[in-house]
């Protein structure tokens, strides 16, 4: 973990294509590049000097004990924390080389490009169809009825929900099961065609079968998206992710290929955590 000087904002964008990794697997393009990021809730610092990169078509997992800042960090990537008064960010976060905290950034457009799925599924109290169409409508991405219907179907298919709901897309979304609601929220996020998908413990409220479906879905989606997932379930991180970041008390302790984090971590703290000795 090399520390980059602060105010990385003023540095030229880093080269985005990196060489083959020591494990022999080719690295992909860097999509999200965070340098020395700190985050404050008022006077309280929740994140300290985080630097990491997430790659296109890869799944990056954040693990760590509860309260270590995983959600906070995830939410800095679509500036969701902006809506909490009194919060503050230092350092830089770039997506496609562009600093997302630069003054000229359109936050609404950023959030369209960086989709988010929450821990507790949060469908709107509308029909399944209208839930998926919501983002299309507010962003006026497509306007004709036929195009909207097409996008809704496409998104529901991508989220592996279409077959289960195709006969009742105009029924209330609240009648779906917990797992279906969460896949609906994924479909809703996919409908606006983001490049990055942030997921905050998307399966933590689900039963094992629904969890497995979400994990399979993540695996299929990664060919099209950059996926970052928070999980407190280490087996899940091991199963779905390519890279894993271990957070502890607001700091990034270790960030590496998932395999290495779970088999040969460099830090003692990481080893203790992944072997279940604490947390």
């Amino acid at each position, binding site marked *: 973990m090399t520390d980059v000087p602060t105010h990385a904002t003023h540095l030229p964008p880093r080269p985005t294509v990196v060489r083959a990794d020591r494990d022999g697997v080719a690295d992909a393009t860097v999509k999200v590049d965070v340098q020395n990021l700190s985050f404050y809730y008022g006077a309280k610092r929740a994140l300290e000097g985080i630097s990491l990169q997430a790659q296109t078509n890869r799944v990056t997992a954040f693990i760590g004990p509860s309260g270590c800042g995983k959600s906070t960090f995830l939410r800095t990537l679509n500036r969701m924390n902006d809506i909490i008064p009194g919060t503050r960010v230092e350092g830089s976060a770039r997506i496609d080389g562009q600093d997302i905290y630069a003054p000229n950034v359109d936050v*609404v457009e950023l*959030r369209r490009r960086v989709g988010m799925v929450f821990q507790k599924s949060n469908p709107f109290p509308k029909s399944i169809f209208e839930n998926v169409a919501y*983002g299309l409508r507010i962003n006026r991405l497509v306007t004709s009825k036929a195009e909207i219907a097409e996008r809704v179907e496409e998104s529901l298919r991508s989220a592996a929900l279409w077959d289960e709901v195709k006969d009742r897309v105009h029924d209330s979304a609240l009648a779906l099961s917990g797992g279906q609601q969460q896949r609906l929220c994924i479909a809703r996020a996919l409908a*606006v065609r983001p490049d990055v998908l942030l997921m905050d413990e998307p399966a933590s409220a689900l039963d094992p079968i629904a969890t497995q479906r979400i994990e399979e879905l993540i695996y299929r989606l990664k060919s099209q998206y950059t996926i970052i997932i928070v999980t407190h379930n280490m087996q899940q991180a091991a199963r779905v992710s390519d890279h894993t970041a271990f957070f502890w008390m607001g700091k990034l302790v270790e960030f590496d290929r998932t395999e290495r984090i779970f088999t040969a971590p460099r830090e003692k703290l990481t080893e203790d955590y992944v072997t279940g000795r604490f947390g």
Partner: protein
Amino acid sequence: MRARSQDLGFRLTTGAFAAALAAIVIGVGVALVSQSWLTIQKFGLGFWSTSTWDPVAGDFGALPFIWGTLYSSILALLIATPIALGIAVFISELCPARLRTPLVFLTELLAAIPSIVYGLWGIFVLVPAVRSLQTHVPDALRALPIFAGPPLGVGMLSAALILAIMVVPFTSSVAREVLKSVPVTQREGAYALGATRFEAIRAAMYFARTGIVGAVMLGFGRALGETMAVTMVIGNNPQVSASLFAPQYTMAAVIANEFTEAADALYLNALVEIGLVLFAITLVVNGLSRLLIWSMARGARGPRRKPAGAAA
């Protein structure tokens, strides 16, 4: 053992109080029916559709009072609802944290002012203002039935305005509570899809829609039963008129004004029957609005439990 019996005693006592409440409601209804039995028998449904109010001749029709109550309450609702919702949204979503407490305090204060004080203010401020407004209505408009009549000041518009002022703090506090109960994940869900602040607020209001309708109806229920302030500014003239400026009458006002002078039994029964209808309408309106608010709050807490065996 002791804990068990204490528990039982507690449940019995509180249960008895709850039963007493239901008994009171039913008892009031029964008393009203029995005290208005003469007019119920004599006029039947005609009581509600005729306009004569002649205590001397013993001929009673309640239509002008029903009309006046509904007209003033609905008009008040139309004026008060956008203002109340605007205040609720401003306080719960937009205003700086520093301003929130004083504003909430102020609305609660307005809700606590006795109705008779609003009535006095109405007589000295509102009525002259409405009178001068009426003298400024252009002649072309004055030909329309809703602007017809001499400039008296007292009348339907003054009553509706004062009702609106009284209802605003009430509706806005309930609407504010309702908005507060919307889970933050609903707003965040909208923001995450690229919603602007305005769109996120709309999403929250959509989530809260049944509760908001409940808040508005609760205000309506309040306007229906309001007596003193309205009596002081509406003009107390039983007539069915579309005019905003015409002096009219309401159900609550006629009971308050005429009850002490009602000398014969039929006259008294007629007033009590008006009370019966007011009772029934407000019961239904308030019951329905509470039900809406309650069902919305229940929805906000999550419609279903986690599936059994949920992953840790």
